């Protein structure tokens, strides 16, 4: 079978919570190698779409294809092992492990050491170099031995990105990666995303329009659980519907 042009195709994706449609008939195609942004007002269903794609929620109806394979019924860990990895909107680090250990948890997975309860943990030290490299990429190398719980909020987000990248995912889903970050970190992280996107695909939820404009090849605007429009930044920025629903009048 020829490799499809799209890494991910979702058809008629719907999620209903007790009669309330959080996501309603969304069709989404993410082109291989692109950075695809998902934007929309609060409560539009972006996080829910993420949860559906990564199988943290069961869709009420609809179909999800990843690299042409139907993953609608696959479990979330299995999806991650196929190379589709997400970060979380609300920071999700391991607070009592150090930053280095946080990243190592991700690095450890492909090593096959996981179930080897008879091996000493020193075998994991071989992963340290790669872990430090990843931490350096998000400017956390100075905090490698700090327990993640003691990091300020913004740096926790950076750590989470480093952990996500450690899995070398083919397809990366980032939920508001720059939320709560200071400006310099925002630019560093967006540079990082650009850099890592060279050989992978990224699906991004982001409210920082600067970042969206800067990074994304394609943007899908969600509103009330449905796709409003899709296009590149310039097209959307001039779309009156988008301006009204999302951007407001202040941006151009």
């Amino acid at each position: 079978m020829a490799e499809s042009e799209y890494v991910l195709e979702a058809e008629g994706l719907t999620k209903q919570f007790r009669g309330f449609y959080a996501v309603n008939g969304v069709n989404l195609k993410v082109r291989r190698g692109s950075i695809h942004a998902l934007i929309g007002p609060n409560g539009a269903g972006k996080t829910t779409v993420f949860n559906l794609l990564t199988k943290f929620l069961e869709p009420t109806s609809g179909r999800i294809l990843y690299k042409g394979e139907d993953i609608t019924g696959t479990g979330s860990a299995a999806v991650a092992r196929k190379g589709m990895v997400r970060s979380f909107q609300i920071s999700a680090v391991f607070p009592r492990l150090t930053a280095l250990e946080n990243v190592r948890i991700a690095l450890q997975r492909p090593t096959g050491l996981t179930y080897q309860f008879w091996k000493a943990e020193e075998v994991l030290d071989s992963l340290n170099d790669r872990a430090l490299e990843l931490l350096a990429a998000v400017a956390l190398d100075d905090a490698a031995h700090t327990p993640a719980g003691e990091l300020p909020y913004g740096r926790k987000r950076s750590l989470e990105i480093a952990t996500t990248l450690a899995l070398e995912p083919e397809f990366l889903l980032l939920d508001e990666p720059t939320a709560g970050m200071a400006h310099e970190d925002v630019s560093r992280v967006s540079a990082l995303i650009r850099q890592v996107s060279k050989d992978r695909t990224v699906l991004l939820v982001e409210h920082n329009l600067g970042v969206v404009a800067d990074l994304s090849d394609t943007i899908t605007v969600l509103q009330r659980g449905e796709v409003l429009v899709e296009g590149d930044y310039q097209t959307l920025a001039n779309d009156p519907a988008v301006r009204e629903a999302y951007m407001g009048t202040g941006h151009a």
Partner: protein
Amino acid sequence: MLEGATDMAEETRQDRTSLLEVSGLHAYYGESHVLHGSSFVVPEGEVVTLLGRNGAGKTTTLRSIMGMVRDRRGSIRFGDRELINLTSNRIASLGIGYCPEERGIFASLDVEENLMLPPTVAAGGMSLDEIYALFPNLKERRRSSGTKLSGGEQQMLAIGRILRTGARLLLLDEPTEGLAPVIVQQIHDVISQLKEKDFTILLVEQNYHFAATVADRHFIMENGRVAEEVRKNELEEKQDIIDTYLGV
């Protein structure tokens, strides 16, 4: 009689110059010393922001004012009351409303219960209808559990919640984090309206552009101290200082 009244008016105007006065504030988490004697003043009726990098100590400052950091030293004066030794429920009932960084929405309460939760501390708060008018999303979802809301909706709820109480001083920790630009604009409008109603607001912000448009005064924090004060009219002349501190 008349003279007495003017005196009082005079006094209030005096107070107006400093509703909240923080001086030499130190705060500790366990053994880590986070605030190193920060001092600043929030005049009555103004919108004041605390700016600074991640970890500069902005949140800790707000939490210290609210009495939520157990280990704190220095002086925090609210009107003519010293807050440094009060418990947080006493502080709140003096008329300070707090909207925390991670929103603090209650899962076991529905949206409306969340809104109704903080007790009224003074007259003059907004009514439920006014709040719903401000944030229509909330009205639509009023019977669902607080944490079922999207991130942005939760932020609205967290702000809406303290508008009801009639607190004169509002502490908002990054109220625009994670909000869509339209909503940010709404929040901007809300803050302006509140200012017109004579509320005093101490705002912690990452979004410098947002802060710049609403605030009368900015304090820039660095390493647990207030490093710089920038008034609204000084914004342009001090732009380069701001740039160096914030890396904008």
